[in-house]
């Protein structure tokens, strides 16, 4: 079977994996097991298909006529698509295995099947989006993906008004995006004469610019570039955790893929394309992680950190675009390779973290981090896995986040040789890194370390293997990519080749940025840690180790409530970034000798959504209905309208003639 057929079969398997469950009882987990099995088969088949397609020789594209007014059923797998297909085929499968324990059908009889169906559709349609080579097909797959994600994310819609609201916001946002894409593809068609997604050789710069901007908005809505991110935190927070994992880990990347693909098809553009993307990425990254620090809800926090990572990826793309505009092959290679590798990495550690958050919520039945604490003792596995994910997402060596950001850094530093203002982005990236450390130390410390702050975690425990397993796999992925990034280099180079036909021989990534040294340092780090651990073992055997309560500066009766909470941990930083975050604080009013009990509360609402979009909608909703007095039921008035429009139309026509 040729690779394209393998992938198509895989897509069908993924897409329809939920269907059998609909026929089975909603109280038995059989349907869910079948779905997981189908997805696993599909995933394996898909990965194999992608592999063979890269191997070459096998059929990688297919184009048959299609009975629509326009467009063909055209699909194709190039290296660029392959990069994105890998997470699409891996993460959802892990997610559905995780779901066996996390969202088992017998425990959710009324929405389990719906979730199963939409989850499968989501996975399948994402793969189809990536391989589509025809605008119409792309749009259809795209919208199916968006809607499937909606139904998957609002699985609890009947119980929870927040879920409904978040879903509605998502639906509007994604629809705006889709409309922009409609305009974009319509324009593309009227310019190139067909929906075929083949490189456009000649195109007037205005049209190309328009297409780029429309694409940036349309795909940016999905990717969550600021200020188009408004839907993201709510949707991710209220979705089932494995759905959040897939949405954040994979679906956001479809937006990135869109931008990558459309820029690959457009002719080489002016420098401002790259500049805009770089700037937007930097803003998105910094603001995203700053918002994350301000959150109390662990899943909202992770969602904002997804926004941050999307920003980082966008910066890489921006660098690549700039390089392309300036004819700097090295910048293109490093920028794009860094971005694409980060796409992988983010899908690895972000799904790991969302799975982990799911396990925490499963154990504590709350998303409020400030009610948690000390879980590391009860959930050692999850604690360790979370630590891995946290280190990885902070882009710290020796894990994978560092590898991809390092490529971008090298690219940005190399841009110094010409001009250099662009390299400012490196500072933004560094700031993002430091903030990320603050953010995830906060989460790790608040959730897993210290003493329990409430009884929420009293019955916490490490979840069963079906939930731990996927996390372990992902953690290993993080380590593998982190220590041996050069494994990915060839694919990334080919992808870059697909994105832009670099004149002359492709500069090897190794030549520009010696990834092998990352491996060396990584291994030596691991080695030293190993040595240190051995030393510690020996030392601790020869020493007397006493245990006691935390000293706490001699305070006699420390209670768990005295611990630094997550919000107090981030307070100073939130204060520093108040100019973008606009945090709200509700101080307790302490009056009189014996003050009444009251509480301090601090929230960081989303500035764009809660201070701009929602008020705007309220305003429209308040004033638009005023116009309804035009239709108050008097037949006389209605007849008058008829007469009036006759006159108006005649005038309007007369003016025209």
């Amino acid at each position: 079977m040729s690779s394209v057929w393998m992938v198509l079969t895989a897509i069908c398997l993924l897409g329809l994996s939920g269907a059998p469950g609909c026929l089975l009882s909603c109280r038995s987990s059989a349907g869910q097991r079948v779905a997981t099995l189908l997805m696993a088969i599909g995933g394996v088949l898909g990965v194999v298909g992608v592999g063979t397609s890269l191997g070459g020789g096998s059929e990688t594209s297919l184009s048959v006529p299609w009975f629509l007014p326009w467009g063909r059923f055209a699909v194709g797998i190039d290296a660029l698509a392959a990069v994105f297909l890998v997470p699409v085929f891996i993460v959802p499968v892990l997610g559905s295995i995780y779901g066996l324990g996390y969202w088992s059908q017998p425990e959710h009889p009324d929405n389990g099947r719906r979730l199963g169906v939409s989850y499968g559709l989501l996975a399948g349609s994402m793969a189809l989006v990536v391989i589509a080579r025809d605008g119409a097909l792309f749009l259809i797959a795209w919208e199916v993906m968006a809607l499937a994600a909606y139904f998957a994310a609002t699985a609890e819609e009947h119980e929870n008004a927040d879920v409904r609201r978040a879903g509605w916001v998502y639906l509007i946002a994604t629809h705006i995006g889709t409309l922009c894409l409609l305009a974009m593809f319509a324009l593309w068609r009227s310019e190139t004469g067909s929906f075929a997604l083949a490189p456009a050789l000649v195109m007037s710069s205005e049209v190309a610019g328009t297409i780029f901007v429309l694409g940036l908005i349309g795909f940016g809505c999905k990717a969550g570039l600021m200020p188009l991110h408004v839907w993201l935190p709510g949707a991710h927070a209220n979705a089932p955790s494995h759905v959040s994992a897939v949405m954040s880990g994979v679906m956001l990347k479809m937006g990135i893929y869109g931008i990558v693909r459309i820029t690959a098809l457009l002719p080489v553009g002016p420098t401002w394309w790259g500049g805009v993307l770089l700037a937007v990425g930097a803003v998105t990254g910094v603001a995203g992680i700053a918002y994350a620090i301000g959150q109390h809800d662990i899943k909202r926090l992770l969602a904002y950190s997804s926004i941050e990572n999307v920003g980082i990826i966008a910066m890489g793309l921006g660098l690549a675009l700039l390089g392309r505009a300036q004819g700097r092959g090295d910048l293109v290679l490093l920028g794009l390779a860094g971005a694409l590798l980060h796409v992988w990495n983010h899908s690895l550690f972000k799904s790991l973290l969302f799975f982990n958050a799911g396990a925490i919520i499963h154990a504590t039945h709350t998303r409020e981090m400030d009610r948690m604490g000390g879980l590391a003792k009860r959930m050692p596995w999850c604690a360790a896995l979370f630590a891995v994910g946290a280190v990885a997402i902070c882009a710290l060596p020796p894990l994978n986040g560092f590898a991809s950001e390092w490529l971008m850094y090298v690219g940005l530093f190399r841009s110094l040789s010409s001009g250099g203002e662009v390299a400012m982005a490196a500072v933004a990236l560094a700031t993002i890194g430091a903030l990320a450390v603050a953010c995830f130390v906060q989460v790790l410390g608040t959730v897993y370390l210290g003493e329990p702050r409430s009884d929420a975690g009293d019955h916490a425990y490490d979840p069963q293997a079906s939930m731990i397993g996927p996390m372990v796999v992902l953690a290993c992925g993080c380590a593998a990519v982190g220590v041996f990034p050069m494994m990915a280099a060839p694919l990334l180079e080919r992808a870059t080749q697909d994105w832009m036909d670099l004149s002359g021989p492709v500069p090897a990534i190794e030549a520009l940025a010696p990834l092998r040294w990352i491996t060396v340092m990584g291994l030596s780090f691991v080695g030293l840690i190993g040595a240190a651990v051995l030393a510690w073992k020996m030392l601790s055997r020869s020493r007397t180790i006493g245990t006691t309560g935390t000293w706490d500066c001699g305070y006699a009766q420390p209670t768990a409530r005295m611990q630094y909470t997550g919000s107090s941990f981030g307070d100073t930083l939130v204060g520093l970034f108040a100019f973008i975050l606009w945090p709200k604080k509700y101080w307790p009013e302490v009056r009189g000798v014996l003050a009444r009990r009251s509480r301090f509360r601090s929230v960081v609402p989303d500035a764009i959504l809660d201070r701009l979009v929602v008020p705007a909608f309220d305003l429209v909703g308040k004033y638009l209905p005023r116009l309804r007095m035009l239709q108050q039921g008097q037949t006389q008035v209605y007849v008058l309208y008829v007469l009036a429009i006759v006159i108006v139309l005649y005038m309007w026509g007369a003016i025209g003639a």
Partner: protein
Amino acid sequence: MAFALILFPLLMAGLAAAVPSNRLRPWLLPLTATVHLALVVMALGQADLTGTAGGWLVLDPPGRIVLLLVSTLFMLCSFYAVGYLGHRQERSNRVFCTCLLSFLGLMSLVSWSHHLGLMWVAIETTTLVTAPLIYFNRTQQSIEATWKYLVVGSVGIALALLGTFFLAYSSLHAGLEPSLNFDDLLKHAPELSKPWLHAAFVLLLVGYGTKMGLAPMHTWKPDAYGEAPGVVGAIFAGGVTSCAFLAFLRVYHICTAAGESAYTSRLLLFMGLFSMAVAVLFMVGQRDFKRMLAYSSVEHMGILALGLGIGGPALYGTLLHVVTNGLTKGVLFLSAGNIHRAYGSKSTDLVRGAIRRLPLSGTLFLAGFLAITGSPPFGPFISEFAILNGAFDAGRFLVAGLFLLLLLGVFIGMGATVLQAVQGRPPSAVRNTPYHDGWLTAAPIVILMAMVLLLGLYIPGPLTAMLNDTVRFLEVRP
């Protein structure tokens, strides 16, 4: 064939009036509809356009599309109607069935007639026979709705008659043998006297636009659709409007053939965008989901006008949109009817969690909403996207932008209402109301939805051929 198609339903209508049993009578509807559909298919089989009755009755490509659409829709609705009337045994359905059947006959007449006078008569008569359908519930509101429908509709139709006369006079003034025969007018289109033609176009646009429900002549629509049973709403939004559109299409055809496409598109774009805007205005914060559907119908009539206004490149999409909109409206109105029946209310204040109260109808209502707002992979997406492409090909970027903007408004306005109705928990009061989805009231909707989905993924060859024929037909220039 023509006479069979037109007279058979009328005969059956007579029969329906005669049949005494309230329980058996409804079954005449599916019976007639099925036979009618079969006849239609046969009629479509024979390709020749040679007319009968001295060229008064010709089945030309646009007529074929509308005939097929309405006949199909009517058949599915007729099965639904049996189920519906089964729930309404307390009330005599003699008038109801008679009017429905005679509407079928008149509709066939509209799609066949090639004489503008005759066509006008047919349309006017449909107005008269459909009025009692709105009045089925015999409530004060339904009388009011009927009254408004009759007054506004008749005034509009009267203007259409005036316009028709103007059209005839334009040929007379040009020194031709005055005639209202479509083919003659088409043949001599270029010679027609322009001032009369313009005036005629305005009057006919307003006249038949009233029947289509273009704003601001749409005022009867929310009342009528809101008070009439769901099945009537479906037949109105899918059938009556399509007939009116066909009637207007003839006029449009003549004017474009006369080389007045600049004038027509100017007016049509105005009407189209205005209708969509009005629809958005009244959809936002709409609590009554049946009225909301009425405004959605206004919006889609606007889209049709817009498509004609853009002209050439958008014609295919416009004609396709007639079909997809008709079928989707069927889905929406029928499922809305079921929800209304189950909850005893059509206000979202009471209607919540329809998906849980009526898993089938609720889901179909939601799917219908997604379809009608132009989400892939449903039919309306294809047609609306085709119209958009047409706008871009015609270089009307501003129009395209406004079109998309208004579509967004419609999505937001409609979505808020629909999601409120289908999501959440149903109030305990309606948990055990008598109505539950039965075969007759659910299966037709499922079939319609299947068609809508099919048209979104694959347009059957014959339909494509019909559409292309129509486009070619509309572009004949004498």
